[in-house]
């Protein structure tokens, strides 16, 4: 029962935080430097890991697909399989998981320590709502950066699949053929669906991480616990949301 109350309390605080942040939306332009800084942290610094992960996810997909499909002569469909899987599902989910692990944990840790060391209280005393200067720029930044990270992830993944398809002896699929089937079976709508999903995931990950960070009570030990909880909740949320968003978008 207590657990259920905690979950409800967590949802409630996240919704309230969201409401407050949206209420401060007009102030975003005045906080432009903060927004840029968050864009840098969320987007630019996450790019290398996104590129590496996407490349290998695309490669492994092509490898597995080629291995399974060679027995019934459907190798030329590897392009469409890798393309659709990356764009519709793996691209957004993987980027969201990376953002949760790399950015979400940092956000929670930062806000939790500010809370624990009473910096948040100090801000509130000065009538500076934390939702305005700490949460709003992050939410705005993640909304701008998630599509950029996801599209890079998608394209790098496709490229990885194409390289593996060409240089694996039992697949040996020319990149022209790979991209031809990719183009034939894919629409821009598929990519757009992925970007929308990534947007939803990123937004909720940052919201949940900010909320858990700001709700931290206690000392330094609670900072670690908050970070762990934020990452776990984010990962669960990504997969649960994935199902519902996919169902809505299909």
């Amino acid at each position, binding site marked *: 029962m207590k657990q259920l109350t905690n979950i409800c309390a967590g949802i409630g605080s996240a919704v309230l935080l969201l409401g407050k942040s949206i209420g401060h939306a007009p102030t975003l332009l005045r906080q432009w430097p903060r927004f*840029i800084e968050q864009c840098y942290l969320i987007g630019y610094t996450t790019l290398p890991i996104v590129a590496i992960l996407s490349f290998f996810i695309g490669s492994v997909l092509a490898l597995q697909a080629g291995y399974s499909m060679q027995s019934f002569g459907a190798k030329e469909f590897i392009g469409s399989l890798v393309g659709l899987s990356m764009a519709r599902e793996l691209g957004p989910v993987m980027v969201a998981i990376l953002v949760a692990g790399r950015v979400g944990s940092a956000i929670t840790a930062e806000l939790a320590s500010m809370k624990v060391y009473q910096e948040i209280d100090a801000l509130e005393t000065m009538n500076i709502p934390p939702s305005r200067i700490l949460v709003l720029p992050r939410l705005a930044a993640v909304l701008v950066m998630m*599509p*950029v*990270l996801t*599209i890079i992830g998608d*394209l790098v993944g496709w490229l990885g699949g194409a390289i593996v398809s060409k240089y694996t002896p039992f697949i040996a699929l020319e990149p022209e053929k790979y991209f031809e089937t990719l183009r034939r079976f894919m629409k821009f709508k598929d990519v757009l669906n992925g970007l929308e999903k990534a947007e939803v995931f990123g937004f909720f990950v940052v919201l949940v991480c900010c909320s858990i960070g700001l709700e931290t009570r206690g000392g330094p030990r609670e900072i670690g616990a908050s970070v762990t909880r934020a990452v776990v909740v984010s990962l669960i949320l990504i997969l649960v949301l994935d199902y519902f968003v996919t169902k809505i978008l299909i």
Partner: protein
Amino acid sequence: MQNNPQQTARVGLFFLLGVALIWVAFETLSDGKVFKDKGYTIIAGFDNVRELKLGDEVRMAGVKVGSVEETRLTGRRAEAVLRIAPGVIIPNDANATILSAGLLGTNYIGVDLGTPGAPPLLAGAEIKTKITADINTIMAQLGDLGTKLDNALGSIGDAMKGKDGKPGLFQRLDTLLADNGGNITETMKNLKEVSGKLNSGEGTLGKLINDPKLHDELLAAVTDIKSAANNAKGFMTDAQAIVDQVKSGQGTLGTLIYNDEAGQNIKVVTKNLRDISDKLAKGEGTLGKLINDDVLYRDAQGTLKKVDRMVEGLADQGPISAVGVVANSLF
């Protein structure tokens, strides 16, 4: 709070990169048709558009010329709106068909080339369509075929085994053999007797088979016939050679038949002959008179009589003259 200018530039560059990549993906995957509709649309009506989906290809003689823009139900038929690329001309007698690109259910619309010189289809016009059997119909027909085959095999089985108390083919054969056993035995006996006679050389056929003399005679006759045939063949070859020669205008006959000059000469000769005969008939000229005038005959007869008498006279004086001649030569 002030940002590091480098940080701002990086974020800006990163954002621009993302936007550019989204644009590249968009241009690659949707042929840029969301913003502006290139080309023109035509309508294809079908009883059933099957698996045809938005964005499926329209191919003319296998070359992609457009895509399916919309599928809709109009009254009691399905319509597909096809967007055709600019510059592609579809004749108004071309036919559109829904075809399968593979067994995975990907469909496309195939448009044939129509007749050359036919007026082009204009934007919004309706293209003629043809119905082809889809895989489900073919499967259903195969199922029907299986049922029919089953029935046919059942009927054959019934005919063999018999049905509803009626005897089958084998039973009938059995009855036939049982009923006519005596006759068959008799026939076999006769056959055996005939073959025995043949073997022992009795009768014409038996002798023909068994007597080597007859065989030799037959062989000689055949050889004669063969040589006669050879002679005939040689004769035919000669005749053919002659005919060839005549045809090529060689020899007298050839010249006569194929040489125009000779023909003309013959014509002239014939004409001359005719003139002569006409003159003769009319009694003109010496010969004509000779033939037609009996005065000449009588004159000739008189003359001949005189000559006769003269010769007789000479005969009487012959020996004297002969002695005279001899004497003259001696002296």
